[in-house]
């Protein structure tokens, strides 16, 4: 019996290793970007330091609609996110020609803010689209999440002493330390890892498991969406121009319907047309379920067309699971705990990738494939974070206006990450690890001070806004920790490179 159990355990360990390895780098990028997305609105504010105006959500949406009526009247739809205590601007998405534009609008004037950037939205999109075209990025993310769920399940079975080793970490013991670290990062936060992976998989379920929808609705997506969200009215443009009725009364009516709940998103379909529809969704910050309450108005008259408070248990369950993943409901402490859990998952993946190599190197010289993987590990595990840190630097260094600034920021981040990846592949790993970690540390340390960071920090503190302090401190802390790690690795490398006769303190390693 125990032989069978041991055999099963070994099979699970094999599956755990391979599922983790095959899409491990993709998972690392997804988890890192997802962890940063927890603070998506806050990152957006940090990246638009000049935008300091504050307005009530209803007034801000009314100002945004006023600006859009003058400047984006031909668009098929305007999709607006109301400001709240985490984000002071209105996030707007609207069509212009064949493209969809994403702009942060000033809550008082309604005009786009000077520093055009995607802000935290970049990390959010990277998390599940991986900068790949639709639907390939989402499909890859979905597949990676599925692999992750398999890796977690098999990891639980493969771990021989899951409770006995709960608090065990033995530093500076080579492979043993990597295994302890990987286990601790995986086990201590196991409920979070399972929850975030399962709910993440569910958010993309319509892509990865489309068959139930196809079986019930075939190609009739309109009926499906109508049944899923009865509060949203979907009707074609009438082709007859009509001015949009004042939105403020509609938003006040929505607030009354939400029972004191705040407005979250406002979608305006066919603006400027007689068949315009204004749909108002309750703020996700007010409850765990995502977008469970909504009300629609006739755009031309302001008359209520439909209202919906989701009570169907299956859909409410889905909304709760979705809400648990995107964590918009969470107060500050919970958001930090999500950030902490996400960091642990990211590090668990990274340590697992390194452990694969360390384990094999201690047994025998590395095969060609494993040597390539070792270099790829450095390139992805350090190169990609360098790219993400460069995104913050690009935000501060690029001049305001005059070009597709938001796109240039992203290009700079991606090219920097590519450079990091290339350096990891070219340089010998013993040199690449400390060198690239040093670059990452430096990038994190300088980001808060670039492009006039100090005056913004002082101005924010003066008006009692501690967001800049928190993000600058977090970047500085990460930079300092990474610098220490890079220094330690460089010191160890120089010791191991010293001729045997002159080595000192080797026993301490």
């Amino acid at each position, binding site marked *: 019996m125990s032989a069978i159990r041991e055999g099963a355990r070994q099979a699970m360990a094999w599956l755990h290793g391979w599922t983790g390895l095959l899409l491990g780098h993709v998972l690392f990028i997804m988890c890192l970007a997802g962890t940063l997305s927890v603070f998506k609105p806050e990152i957006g504010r940090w990246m638009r330091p000049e935008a300091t105006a504050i307005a009530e959500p209803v007034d801000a949406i009314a100002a945004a609609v006023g600006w859009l009526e003058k400047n984006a009247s031909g668009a098929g739809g305007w999709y607006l996110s109301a400001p709240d205590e985490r984000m002071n601007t209105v996030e707007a998405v609207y069509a212009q020609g064949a493209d969809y534009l994403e702009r942060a609008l000033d809550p008082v004037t309604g005009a786009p803010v000077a520093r055009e950037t995607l802000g935290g939205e970049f990390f959010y999109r990277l998390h599940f689209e991986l900068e790949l075209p639709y639907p390939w990025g989402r499909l890859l993310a979905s597949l990676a999440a599925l692999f992750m769920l398999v890796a977690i399940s098999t990891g639980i079975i493969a771990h021989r002493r899951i409770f006995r080793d*709960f*608090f*065990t*970490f033995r530093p500076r013991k080579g492979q043993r330390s990597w295994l302890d670290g990987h286990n601790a990062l995986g086990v201590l*936060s196991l409920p979070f890892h399972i929850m975030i992976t399962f709910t993440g998989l569910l958010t993309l379920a319509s892509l990865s498991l489309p068959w139930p929808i196809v079986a019930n609705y075939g190609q009739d997506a309109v009926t499906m969406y109508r049944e899923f969200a009865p509060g949203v009215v979907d009707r074609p443009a009438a082709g007859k121009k009509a001015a949009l009725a004042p939105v403020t009364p509609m938003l006040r009516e929505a607030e009354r319907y939400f029972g004191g709940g705040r407005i979250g998103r406002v979608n305006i379909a066919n603006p400027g047309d007689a068949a315009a529809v204004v749909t108002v969704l309750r703020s996700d910050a007010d409850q*765990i379920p995502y977008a469970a309450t909504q009300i629609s108005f006739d755009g031309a008259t302001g008359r209520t067309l439909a209202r919906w408070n989701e009570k169907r248990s299956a859909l409410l369950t889905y909304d709760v699971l979705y809400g648990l993943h995107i964590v918009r409901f*969470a107060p500050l*402490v919970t958001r930090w705990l*999500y950030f902490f859990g996400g960091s642990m998952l990211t590090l668990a993946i990274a340590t697992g990738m390194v452990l694969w190599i360390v384990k094999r190197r201690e047994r025998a010289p590395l095969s060609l494939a494993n040597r390539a993987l070792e270099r790829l590990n450095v390139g992805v595990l350090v190169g990609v974070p360098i790219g993400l840190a460069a995104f913050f630097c690009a935000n501060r260094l690029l001049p305001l206006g005059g070009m597709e600034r938001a796109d240039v920021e992203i290009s700079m981040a991606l090219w920097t990450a590519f450079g990091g990846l290339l350096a990891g592949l070219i340089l010998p790993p013993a040199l690449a690890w400390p060198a690239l970690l040093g670059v990452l540390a430096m990038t994190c340390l300088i980001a808060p001070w670039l492009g006039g960071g100090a005056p913004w920090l002082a101005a924010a503190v003066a008006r009692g806004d501690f967001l800049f302090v928190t993000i600058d401190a977090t970047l500085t802390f990460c930079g300092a920790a990474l610098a220490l790690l890079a220094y330690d690795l460089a010191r160890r490398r120089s010791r191991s490179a010293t001729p045997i006769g002159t080595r000192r303190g080797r026993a301490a390693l």
Partner: protein
Amino acid sequence: MISSAALLYLGLFASALGMHKHGAALVGKTSAAIIQRYAPALSWLLILLSLGPVTFADRPSLSLILWVGLVPLLAGLILVALAWDTRIARLAAIIAIGALGIAPIL
């Protein structure tokens, strides 16, 4: 939530005390031998008790999410202390007991 976090930490601390290889490191061999008999039961009791404030919170669902998020943070603190300096874990246990005392006032 302060009392819940304090009870949870003390529960995890008791759990570490009950483990053969960690108990002695945390409180010394002699004390560990005596404590280890009761530590596992005490650990589960404290962890269960830490769920009490969660149940009676204004929004139990949010409190439960917070509680789940606190487990890796507090267990991680004990793990780090056991790996580098056990005084951190003992000091945190004293702070947790103190927090339990002042939580009703807050």
